[in-house]
């Protein structure tokens, strides 16, 4: 069946901070030059912000560049960052460490990134950006010369076996002069672009962390508005990269989260259980006495930094935000860089649209411009800190201190990254981890957690977690690694079910919170995450 098509100047895949900033900047530039630019933003979530999850302490630098009067316009940044605490945890104790300079938060704000995106989308619509949540870009479209000419939205109303159901609607083609991919970490279309245009040939692989977040409403007496706490150490062993955040903001809200580097070795590790266990630490748990958990979610983040930045442009399109990977890991912030990359992409595209002489469809000016911005300097300076954690926590902290205080990011070397999925050891070489049972008050199981993410997928659609080779699930994942997906998935999607004939992998795709961890960590890269029907996935409020 033929698809309908529509033509835009720029199509943006993803309505997060980078995509929306790109859309807004394009319209602003068009407006000031008196030029009509048509911009369309596609978002797979049911509404803007519903798939956005972040700590978040937000550095407003890019926002101020985009909207100098953002406070007047009502941007939802209400809680100025207060005191910073950086703690090293042992099982029973908490040792206060000096806060690394990158982690000082003066001038920043504790906020919900989802709500900031909701606000950005309103601003974008004011500027006549066409914002379409509920539609997933499912396919990259190419012209006869192999130039990206846009994307197609997914078909709606397919049945489980892939045939057309009674309410079937064919997807639609959105054509553009430039397509901006702003899918967030491990974008499913970006992944195909990496292969097609060999965008990683001159950079390290991307490495990721999995962040799991809970939002709590706590007793007013336990709330210290503006307080920012980060921890490292327990419950992770010193060979596993990770740590926590805890932010007190707005009215009695506390955002608490835990990040585990996805290059972890032990297939028995469960990031979800580490997060639950972490909350029981005596320095942490009392905050939640009498409190109520109101939201839950998880999302992978790109942590590779400078040396993992891929080639950013290709004929017909470009990458912005976390799908390219601009997160500043030592600073544990990526919103300001994501927004900056989107804005810079917009400026480069605008310039190329103005330049009617050139016939090039690859906007290489984007990278050149980016190299001249503060973003580039910021990421370059801190490039050696994350890879140094390969040596374990203490050597890395020592190195990070030297790199930060003495070398000041000007070391003549650059450490390399290894892809996360290669890190897993066979189960027989590892010890199973014994996690405590949830108490239902402070700690919880996966299913009651997923319940709070408001996740839903239309029933009866094809499974969006595809296996390249079905037999690998048992022959490799189960037999060699003891089924790690059942533990790393924070939403209980993967289950090995014992049956008469032996174990079988059951995929509960309706639980999927779109964190992308399986696509990243699967040891043989056999799991391929593709977009489900638009509108599916979590419905995060205030995350």
């Amino acid at each position, binding site marked *: 069946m033929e698809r*309908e098509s*529509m033509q835009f100047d720029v199509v943006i895949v993803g309505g997060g901070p980078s995509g929306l900033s790109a859309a807004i900047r394009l319209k602003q530039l068009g407006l000031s030059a008196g030029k009509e630019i048509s911009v369309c933003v596609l978002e797979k979530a*049911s*509404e803007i*912000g*519903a798939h956005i999850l972040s700590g978040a302490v937000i550095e407003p630098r890019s926002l101020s560049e985009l909207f100098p009067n953002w406070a007047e316009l009502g941007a939802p940044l209400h809680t100025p960052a207060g005191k910073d605490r950086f703690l090293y945890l042992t099982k029973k104790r908490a040792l206060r460490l000096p806060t690394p300079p990158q982690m000082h938060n003066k001038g920043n704000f504790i906020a*919900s990134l*989802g*709500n900031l995106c*909701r606000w950005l989308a309103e601003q974008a619509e004011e500027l006549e950006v*066409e914002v*379409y949540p*509920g*539609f997933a870009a499912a396919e990259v479209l190419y012209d006869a010369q192999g130039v990206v000419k846009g994307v197609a*939205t997914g078909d*709606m*109303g397919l049945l489980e076996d892939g045939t057309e159901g*009674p*309410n079937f*609607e064919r997807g*639609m083609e959105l054509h553009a002069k430039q397509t901006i991919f702003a899918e967030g970490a491990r974008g499913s279309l970006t992944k195909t672009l990496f292969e097609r245009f060999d965008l990683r040939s001159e950079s390290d692989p991307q490495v990721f962390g999995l962040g799991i977040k809970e939002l709590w*409403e706590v007793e007013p007496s336990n709330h210290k508005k503006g307080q920012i706490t980060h921890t490292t150490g327990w419950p992770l062993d010193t060979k596993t990269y990770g740590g926590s955040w805890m932010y007190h903001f707005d*009215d*009695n809200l506390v955002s608490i989260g835990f990040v585990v580097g996805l290059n972890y070795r032990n297939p028995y590790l469960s990031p979800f259980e580490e997060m639950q266990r972490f909350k029981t630490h005596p320095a942490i748990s009392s905050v939640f006495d009498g409190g109520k958990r*109101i939201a839950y979610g998880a999302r992978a983040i790109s942590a590779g930094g400078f040396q993992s930045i891929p080639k950013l442009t290709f004929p017909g399109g470009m990458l912005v935000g976390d799908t390219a990977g601009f997160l500043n890991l030592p600073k544990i912030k990526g919103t300001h860089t994501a927004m900056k990359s989107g804005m810079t992409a917009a400026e480069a595209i605008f310039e190329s649209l103005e330049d009617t002489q050139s016939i090039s469809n690859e906007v290489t000016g984007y990278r050149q411009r980016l190299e001249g911005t503060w973003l580039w300097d910021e990421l370059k300076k801190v490039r050696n800190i994350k890879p140094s954690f390969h040596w374990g926590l203490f050597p890395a902290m020592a190195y990070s201190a030297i790199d930060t205080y003495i070398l000041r990011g000007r070391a003549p070397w650059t450490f390399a990254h290894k892809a996360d999925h290669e890190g897993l050891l066979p189960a027989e070489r590892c010890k199973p981890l014994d996690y405590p049972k949830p108490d239902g008050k402070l700690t919880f199981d996966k299913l009651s957690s997923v*319940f*709070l993410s*408001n*996740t*839903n997928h239309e029933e009866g659609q094809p499974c969006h977690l595809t296996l390249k080779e079905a037999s690998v699930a048992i022959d490799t994942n189960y037999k060699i690694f003891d089924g790690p997906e059942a533990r790393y998935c924070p939403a209980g999607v993967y289950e090995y079910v014992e049956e008469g004939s032996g174990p079988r992998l059951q995929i509960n795709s309706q639980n999927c919170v779109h964190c992308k961890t399986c696509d990243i960590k699967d040891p043989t890269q056999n799991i391929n995450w593709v977009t489900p029907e638009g509108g599916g996935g979590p*419905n995060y*409020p*205030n995350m």
Partner: protein
Amino acid sequence: MKILVAVKRAIDYNVKARPKADGSDVDLANVKMSMNPFDEIAVEEAIRLQEAGVASETVAVSIGPKQCQETLRTAMAMGIDRGILVSSDDEVQPLAVAKLLKSVVEKEQPELVIVGKQAIDDDSNQVGQMLAALLGWSQGTFACGVELDGSESLTVRREIDGGIQTLDLKMPAVITTDLRLNEPRYVKLPNIMKAKKKPLDVIEAGETGVDIKPRLVTLKVTEPPVREGGVKVEDVNELIEKLRNEAKVI
């Protein structure tokens, strides 16, 4: 024939509703809102009647704050011809809604009004019935099948305890939709774009002359009580003992 459909902006059915900390109401801050699912069915039914050539015009009306315009745009993206927002930032309770709808009906003169049987936020299930009574029209509630017999009457099948009741109604009439009436269509992207250009009129609730003062007072909104886990009993004697002394039911 003109059909009027009423659509309510309600908390999305996927979202877990949660009381505010002070128990005054459900917390709706930054929570996803959508068209009430029963109203989606009403919209779908109106569009199908139009596609079947029975209806000549379909109009959607919503009552509430300005964000209800999004709900109306969704209805228009599905296929409704135009929208009317009765704008009010104050709480509107079922009786006020029925009276405001009556004033819209008097202005628009539709032959058929289709509304959802209830909204999933307050579950009142009152507006359709009250509207029919205020207008003095026939009513077919909990409809799972609607067929027009010429322009004078219609047959409505309705879900009742233990079966399906078939009613013959004289026009004009009010229908309230049940879940099995139809399955609403997906909204197509180009239709969302087209819906932005369809006419949407805004009427101030205050200018209708309808008294919308609330009649009901919400005392408290709380979570349902937590269900306590059961216990296993060893034998019949222990069961009887517990029923007699703990539960005190025998």
